[in-house]
């Protein structure tokens, strides 16, 4: 269940970014802050990788070599259907 909540949270955050990718580090810190849980780096990496495997997001790299998360078209459609932001 929490995985589903994390998925929605990540999609919400990426929708907020309005087409700009977000550093994975910021997303992970956001998840920790929002869910008040002591997730390990490995757990958070695996949540993000799962989202990438399901084609909701892509994981790329920026000029500094940091992981960047971006929303795919499928992710955007899912977000619109699942989240329905107020």
């Amino acid at each position, binding site marked *: 269940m929490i995985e589903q909540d994390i998925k929605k*949270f990540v999609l919400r955050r990426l929708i907020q*970014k309005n087409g700009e990718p977000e550093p994975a*580090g910021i997303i992970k810190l*956001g998840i920790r*802050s929002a*869910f008040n849980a002591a997730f390990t780096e490995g757990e958070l990496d695996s949540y993000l990788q799962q989202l990438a495997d399901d084609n909701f997001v892509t994981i790329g790299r920026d000029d500094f070599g940091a992981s960047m998360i971006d929303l795919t078209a499928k992710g955007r459609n899912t977000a619109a259907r699942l989240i329905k932001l*107020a």
Partner: protein
Amino acid sequence: MKTSPTKSAAWEEDSFWREVVAVLTGGKKLRGEHYLQNLSGEELEQLRSALSAPGTLSDQQKLCPARRGGKTDGELPPASLLSPISQAVREVTTLRALQRQDIISAATKDRCGQLGIDPQLTNAVVRVVAEEALRQQAENQVGNFAISAANVLLLAEGSRTKAKQEEVKIQLRKSKLTQDDRKIVLMEKKAAAYDRAQAALAAAKTQKGGITPETLTQIERELKLL
């Protein structure tokens, strides 16, 4: 028959609570008998501060406004109801903090751009600061990291100013060298004129008829160049 306009719930008037309800329901309609549906604006504020108070959920429960209407009127909301609301409040609060972070980052980038600081350095510092700020927030810490980061930017600005000053110094040195070159050329010209005047005088001394008006004119012309 007249229909009275439906009075909207207090949460619908507040963008924060609208987002909380959207997280809770996934964008669906909130049930009419839901706890949040009958809370006033003040009670929603009370609920928000109760959920951010330190302690366990049952500690927070005691600070929450009582339920309104229905069979449970006047009772405190159960922990099973407060738990998802608390989670949704935390999610929305974090999303808002991230949004605020975006605004701060954009403003910082703008300012650094105005100061002419290397955009790559700015991006790196802005990101590190954002990550640290969020980490501190997640861990409920307050640190002086932002001050250190600001110092890094100031140092960068300082080195940029120093580099500019060096550039100006080099430019000044170059123009001084050009002036020196011109002085040398002028002095060489004067020396040549002196030599020519001396030669004309020496030639006049050895001439039979002595110094002629032509020789005088020539000497006068060379002397003017000195």
